C-alpha cells in the first residue's frame, strides 16, 4: 500500500506501521530530490498551504515552509502575534477566513491540546499538526525515527532513551508512540517531577539515573529544558539539572561504547547537552534538521494526493 490510512496528520497515535513505512519510503525519494542541484519538483503547483502558527516557532515553521516550496505549493504564513487573534478572534473564525482564500492544507501549531483534531472536524482542508500544546508533534517524531533508521539501519529492536522534560514535551509523547509502533524499546530519563504519572501505561520504563540510562541505550534523544512551559519550579536550579541530567563528553567517554545523540532543537548549550557533545561525530542533530524537510515533503505530498481535482 502506497497511501496513508488517515485524512489528516493529527498525531502519531492515529497512524499504523504501514503509514510510517509509506512516509519513510516517500521521504527517501524526497531526500534524493533535495540533494539535486535544483531541489524543487512541480507536484503541488496547484495546492495552497496555510502555515498557522499560534505559538512561536523557528525551525519547524522554516522546515515546513521549505518543504512546501520545494513541492511548488503556494504558501501563506500566519503568526498569531501579528494577527486579529490579538483582537479576540476565535480559532474557527481565523481559520475560516483563511480557508475562504481557497486553502487546501493547513499546517497548524497551537498552544492547546487537541486544536488540530478540533479544526479537522470543522473545516474542509487537510490538517497537519505542527505541535499542539504539550500533546503531540508528529512530524518531529517521524523525522527523529527516520534519522535513527538512517543512522542505525532500523528502528526495530533499538534501545532509545528520551532524556529531559517528558511532562511538558510533545516531542517525547509523539516519539514514544512512533518508536513503539516500529518495535523499539523506549525508556525515559529525567527528574521524577518532569515524568508524567501515566508513562508506564505507554509501555515505557522510567530511569532516573542518567548513567544507567546511557549504559542501556543505543540512542539518547535529549530534550530541551522548557522553562516557558513550567509554571512552577520542577527542579531546584538549572545547575543542579545539568549536574544530574546534562550530557557531557566525559559521561559518554566513560560508557565504553558509542551511542547516537539526538536533540530536537533549539539547544540550551551547556544545560541539557554540552557543545562538544552536540557537535561531535556521534551527534545527528543536523541530520535531523535535513531529514525534517524530506519527511515533511513526504507527509504533505501523501496528504495532497488525497485531494481530488
Amino acid at each position, binding site marked *: 500500500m*502506497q*497511501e496513508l490510512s488517515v485524512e489528516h496528520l493529527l498525531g502519531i497515535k492515529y497512524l499504523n506501521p504501514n503509514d510510517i513505512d509509506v512516509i519513510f519510503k*516517500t521521504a527517501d*525519494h524526497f531526500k*534524493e*530530490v533535495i540533494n*539535486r*542541484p*535544483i*531541489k*524543487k*519538483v*512541480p*507536484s*503541488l503547483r496547484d495546492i495552497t498551504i496555510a502555515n498557522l502558527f499560534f505559538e512561536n516557532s523557528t525551525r519547524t515553521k522554516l522546515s515546513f515552509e521549505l518543504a512546501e516550496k520545494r513541492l511548488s505549493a503556494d504558501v501563506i504564513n500566519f503568526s498569531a502575534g501579528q494577527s486579529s487573534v490579538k483582537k479576540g478572534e476565535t480559532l474557527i473564525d481565523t481559520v475560516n477566513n483563511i480557508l475562504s482564500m481557497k486553502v487546501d492544507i493547513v499546517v497548524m501549531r497551537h498552544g492547546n491540546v487537541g486544536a488540530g483534531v478540533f479544526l479537522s472536524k470543522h473545516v474542509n482542508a487537510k490538517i497537519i499538526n505542527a505541535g499542539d500544546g504539550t500533546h503531540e508533534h508528529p512530524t518531529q517524531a517521524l523525522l527523529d525515527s527516520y534519522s535513527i533508521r538512517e543512522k542505525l539501519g532500523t528502528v526495530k529492536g533499538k534501545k532509545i532513551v528520551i532524556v529531559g522534560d517528558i511532562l511538558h514535551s510533545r516531542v517525547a509523547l509523539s516519539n514514544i508512540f512512533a518508536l513503539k509502533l516500529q518495535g523499539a524499546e523506549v525508556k525515559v530519563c529525567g527528574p521524577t517531577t518532569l515524568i508524567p504519572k501515566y508513562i508506564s501505561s505507554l509501555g515505557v520504563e522510567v530511569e532516573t539515573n542518567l548513567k544507567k540510562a546511557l549504559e542501556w541505550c543505543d540512542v539518547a534523544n535529549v530534550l530541551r529544558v522548557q522553562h516557558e512551559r513550567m509554571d512552577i519550579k520542577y527542579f531546584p536550579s538549572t545547575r543542579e539539572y545539568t549536574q544530574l541530567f546534562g550530557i557531557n563528553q566525559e559521561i559518554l567517554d566513560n560508557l565504553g561504547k558509542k551511542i547516537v545523540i539526538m536533540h530536537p532543537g533549539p539547544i540550551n548549550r551547556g544545560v541539557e547537552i554540552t557543545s562538544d557533545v552536540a557537535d561531535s561525530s556521534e551527534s545527528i542533530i543536523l541530520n535531523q534538521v535535513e531529514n525534517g524537510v524530506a519527511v515533511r515533503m513526504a507527509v504533505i*505530498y*501523501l496528504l*495532497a*494526493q488525497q*485531494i*481530488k*481535482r
Partner: protein
Amino acid sequence: MSRKTLLNSKDIEIILHRLACQLIENHNDFSNTVLIGLQPRGTFLAERLAELLKNEYNIKELELGLLDITFYRDDFRRKDKPLAAEKTQMNFLIEDKKVVIIDDVLFSGRSIRAALTAIQSYGRPESIELLVLIDRRFSRHLPIQPNYRGRQVDAINEEKVLVTWKKTHKKDAVYIESKE
C-alpha cells in the same frame, strides 16, 4: 484478453544492436554523452543497451542513470491509485552533456515531457535525444517524437503494448494485448 506477439527475442536482439550502432554513429566514444533510463520500465532497455555498448562495441566509459519522473507527472491527484515513486540513481551532473533519454514505449508523450522537466534538476544539457523500443504512432498528446526507435506500431488506444525482458520476465518479447 487476446495477446499477439509483435517482437520475439531474436527481433529484439537485432533491434538492440541496430539502436546501439545508431547511438555510436552519433555519440562516438560516449565521452560527452549520458544515457538515462526512465523508471520503471525504461531502465531495463537502458541497462541492456549499456551492456551491449560496453561488451559488444567496446565502449569503455559509459554513464548510465536511472530517473524517476513521478514528482513531475501531470496526472498527480487525477488517478484512483496513488502515484508511487521509484528509485532515482543519477550520480553525475548533465551540464553540457548530450543526454539520451531511454524508454520502452512512447505513447502519449506525457512521460517524456515529465522527464524533460526532471532532467533540468541535474543541470543544463547540451542536447537531449529520445530513444524508444516501441513508438506508438497516432497516439501522441504532445509534440514529442523519438530520435531512435526500435519499431513503429499502429495500435488502437484500447490495445496495450507490453514489453517483457529476459532479466525480469525470463523472455525478451513485445506483445500487443487487447481486451476482447
